[in-house]
């Protein structure tokens, strides 16, 4: 299936290949909450079109890493570069614009706006980026169909199941054609079958649109949908694949 066309003005222009590798890179991140360190020198990078699973036990710093990468929180030390630009050097409004246009988000519990219909929810990031209502809702409708939840168009989040809500959330994350999708335990609240279907749809859609996916999960079966996994342990990121290469 051909992905729906990006509405004008929401997708980033493709950069030259050399400037684009890696798309998102973090180096030496430190972040503490009071006296408790969450990140202690974490580094991470992801290329365009890559799906990377970030694994690790509860409290290991996975979500903090994701929030730093997405510019939601600022690390105490270290840098995050997106397409060569350092996030901490951007103004608040520039960072907000980045989160609306270039970044998409899927959380464990959908976090859809309860007062809006599902169609309006999916259209929202495009509307905020200035796309006219008709065009935004047209694209939103195509994405709902792609995520197999066309029947939720006119319904509000409270009227649909958890599995449908997560698919609507994936549609919302991808409809604005982000360069990076941040998915934090996107299947954590779903049963096995629904969770797997959401992962299939999310990774297939991201691969088709060329979006990178940072997938935070503690479930290995969910992580298996990625291209590679990293593990956060004691606030640092470990690339298990690199360590095992010599043993294959």
């Amino acid at each position, binding site marked *: 299936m051909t992905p729906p066309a990006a509405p004008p003005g929401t997708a980033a222009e493709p950069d030259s290949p050399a400037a684009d590798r890696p798309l998102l890179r973090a180096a030496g991140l430190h972040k503490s909450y009071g006296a408790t360190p969450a990140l202690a020198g974490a580094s991470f990078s992801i290329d365009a079109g890559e799906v990377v699973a970030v694994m690790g036990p509860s409290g290991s710093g996975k979500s903090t890493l994701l929030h730093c990468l997405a510019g939601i929180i600022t690390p105490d030390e270290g840098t995050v570069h997106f397409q060569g630009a350092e996030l901490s050097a951007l103004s608040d409004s520039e960072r907000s614009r980045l989160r609306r246009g270039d970044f998409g988000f899927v959380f464990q519990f959908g976090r859809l706006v309860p007062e809006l219909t599902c169609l309006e929810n999916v259209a929202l990031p495009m509307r905020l980026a200035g796309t006219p209502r008709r065009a935004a809702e047209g694209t939103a409708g195509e994405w709902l169909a792609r995520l197999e939840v066309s029947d939720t168009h006119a319904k509000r989040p409270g009227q649909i199941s958890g599995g449908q809500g997560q698919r609507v959330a994936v549609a919302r994350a991808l409809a604005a054609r982000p360069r990076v999708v941040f998915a934090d335990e996107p299947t954590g609240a779903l049963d096995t079958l629904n969770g797997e279907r959401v992962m299939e749809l999310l990774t297939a859609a991201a691969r088709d649109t060329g979006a990178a996916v940072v997938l935070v999960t503690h479930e290995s*079966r969910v992580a*298996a949908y990625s291209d590679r996994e990293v*593990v956060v342990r004691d606030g640092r990121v*470990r690339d*298990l*694949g690199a360590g095992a290469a010599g043993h294959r």
Partner: protein
Amino acid sequence: MSISHTLLGLLEAGPRHGYDLKRTFDERFGHDRALHYGQVYATMSRLLKNGFVEVEGFEAGDGPERKRYAITDAGVTDVGRWLTTPEKPEPYLRNTLYAKVVLALLSGRNAAELLDVQTAEHLRLMRELTRRKRDGDLVDQLVCDHALFHLEADLRWLELAAARLDRLAEELRR
């Protein structure tokens, strides 16, 4: 997996030659491990001796085996008994991974590294099975899911073992 019961079960649908039985077995249950012809013929000889199958006829052909086997009443009873007897769950108590961890700790090697390498290998196979599942039909999906759930259980154990390495090392030193 009991090959003799599986072949016997396939015969319940109707008489077949040894070659046909092998092909059907491989298609339905072989996946990564096809049966050898020798296994099929040895099994059929045994079933024949025990009265669970009979030779229904011979057919002309180029292949080495032309006997056409049919299941007997005793064979049907045996398959029925096998199908309704629960399989004994694997106890998993004698485990190579556990033995490696203990030996690494006893010999002062890096047990954490060993667990990481094993975790990466499990994850690599899980990615491969997930790809196969995505491109396959419902039969592939069920077979891969079975393997994926077992690998997931191993991974949970690996994670737990990694979290308890210091305590285990301490106990082994006593």
